[in-house]
């Protein structure tokens, strides 16, 4: 197996570990972002090939392989969705800090009363 794929699996595991242990809301958001990025990295590593050329119709040389364009199109969409969720989550965390004065998950449960 390719070393890149193993590394991106490793990033998935790190971010899952972070989601399970981190008490801070901002760290949770960061871990979510890492998970998203590692999923993207995983997909791009799976379809990556060094010899292939870019898939533009006029420049196709029949002797060479062409890169599959679909994964890149899909992943740019996934990145956009991730950015939207991150922005919304950061806005919510600012509001939570205004209301409760803390960004700690356990502290928030205590203050619920």
């Amino acid at each position, binding site marked *: 197996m390719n070393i890149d794929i193993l590394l991106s699996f490793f990033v998935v595991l790190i971010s899952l570990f972070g989601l*399970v242990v981190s008490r801070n809301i901002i760290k949770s958001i960061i871990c979510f972002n890492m998970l998203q990025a590692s999923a993207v990295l995983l997909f791009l590593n*799976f379809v990556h090939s060094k010899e292939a050329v870019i898939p533009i119709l006029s420049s196709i040389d029949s002797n060479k392989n062409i890169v599959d364009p*679909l*994964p890149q199109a899909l992943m740019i969409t996934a990145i956009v969705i991730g950015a939207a*969720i991150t922005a*919304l989550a950061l806005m919510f965390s600012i509001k*939570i800090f205004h209301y*409760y004065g803390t960004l700690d*998950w356990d502290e928030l449960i205590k203050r619920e009363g």
Partner: protein
Amino acid sequence: MEFIPVYIIFIPIIASMIVYLFNNKYISYLALVSQILITIIFIPYFNFLKEHGIHELYIGGWNKAIGIALKNDMLSLAFICLSIIIWWLILIYFWDRRKVDYKFLFFFLFLEGVFLGLLQTNDLFNFFVFVEATTIISAILIIYKKDGYSIRAGFYYLLFNSVGMIFYLIGLILVYIVVGTLNMDVISNTIILIKDTNIVKMAYIFMIVAMGVKAAFFPVYNWLPKAHGAAPASISALLSGLLVKSGLYGFIRIGQIFQFNYFNEFFFLIGFFTAFSGVLFAISQKDIKQILAFHTISQIGIVLMGLSSMSGNLYYGGLLHLFNHAFFKSLLFLGAGLIINEYKVRRVTEIRGVFKNFPFMSIYMIVGILSITGAPLFNGFVSKSIIEYELKNSFIKVIMLNIVNLGTIISFVKFSQIFFGNSDVKINKHINRTFSIFLLALMCIIIGNFYNPIASHLLNIDLPYVCHLDIIKWVKYIVNLAIGYVIYKKVIDRDYCLIKKIRHTKISFQTSNLMLLFFIFTMIIWSSILV
């Protein structure tokens, strides 16, 4: 006729944008106009699809394996029908002639378009995009009141559901690597040959777990009671009636693609645990909306018990219960919202005398309560008796279903205490709200009594064994009601410390993530043991 699937996605979205941009009193009526347009377009399409059975649309005329595909069959048709009805009723509920908040209307209509797209798409990646869009928009609608509690609930909902959907993305990647396409039809045709490889199993497990997070299955339902409790009444009804079902819809679709039969028993068990733990928490709660939210979980468990078979009458029983649940749970949430709005308290022990203040609304809510507890003549009875009849070969499974039903009755005995007694709260009249609740109650009674034509039209099944005049069923319901009342008076009402402990159980975000991983590992172990 051919492009109607596209129209019913984009009419609400475009109407929502116009409402947001122009923002005045008259432009708000565009919401009603767009609803009327969708309904007018949808009725001939319904007849068209009933003739043809399946309608596929490839946007841009591309090949099936490459292009964007929309596909409607009878399942998605029934879901579209349900969602248009629910959106109508909720629009009637919050409509106010003097002022409707344009931001609320924007998100509400946009959500309708996105949700109708989710039901019609035939592409795994577009499904992902639509689910994420519904998650974002419903998170914004949950925090609509902008107090601390609702913002926390919305944040939890957004982050946890997004983490779940990342697993869907990983599963989708694995499918794409193996099969090379994202079209659901093509995948289900080609994947039969390589079904037993580990990579396909992993893809299935990841995708189903993500759908489990959306649909609130047993270990990962913690976001649901928070979100449903914090949202405004109309949004709680929408979340509980429809948006939770997006997960179950995905569950059905992914199950149809992969067809792994050895997970059926597993999902039956998950369904039982979901139902049982939902009932257990619902009995201990005191907040009126929390009780209803936990009952959403328990009813989803019953639906899952039915759906887990993936074929046959048991599956249709689960499907019918899903539709019935949409009606009676929306009814109860809307009624609870009206009560909270007037009484300004949420504790079930402090609300009294609802029957004197709202005589008509109380009757409709009692219809809802009778439906959810499975009384004969109402719609919950029909689907529950289908499920029970199909499980008759296994004694343990029937006992499981009856335990859940008894728990439901106990907590609704507790809930129904709000109707008795007196109160001196001044009440305003809400004609449109009561009217929308009345329509929902009417739907419950109609489905409960004319289930035969509805089932044969929408689902193509016969139900000869469901009979309202079966004396055994009546006796069983009344005995259950009596036992439930006794248990309520002797155990629940005294508020022992164990019940208090269950009520104050709080599960943090980290623990929820741990449970998500636990869910994945359980599925991996189950699949490796059985094959």
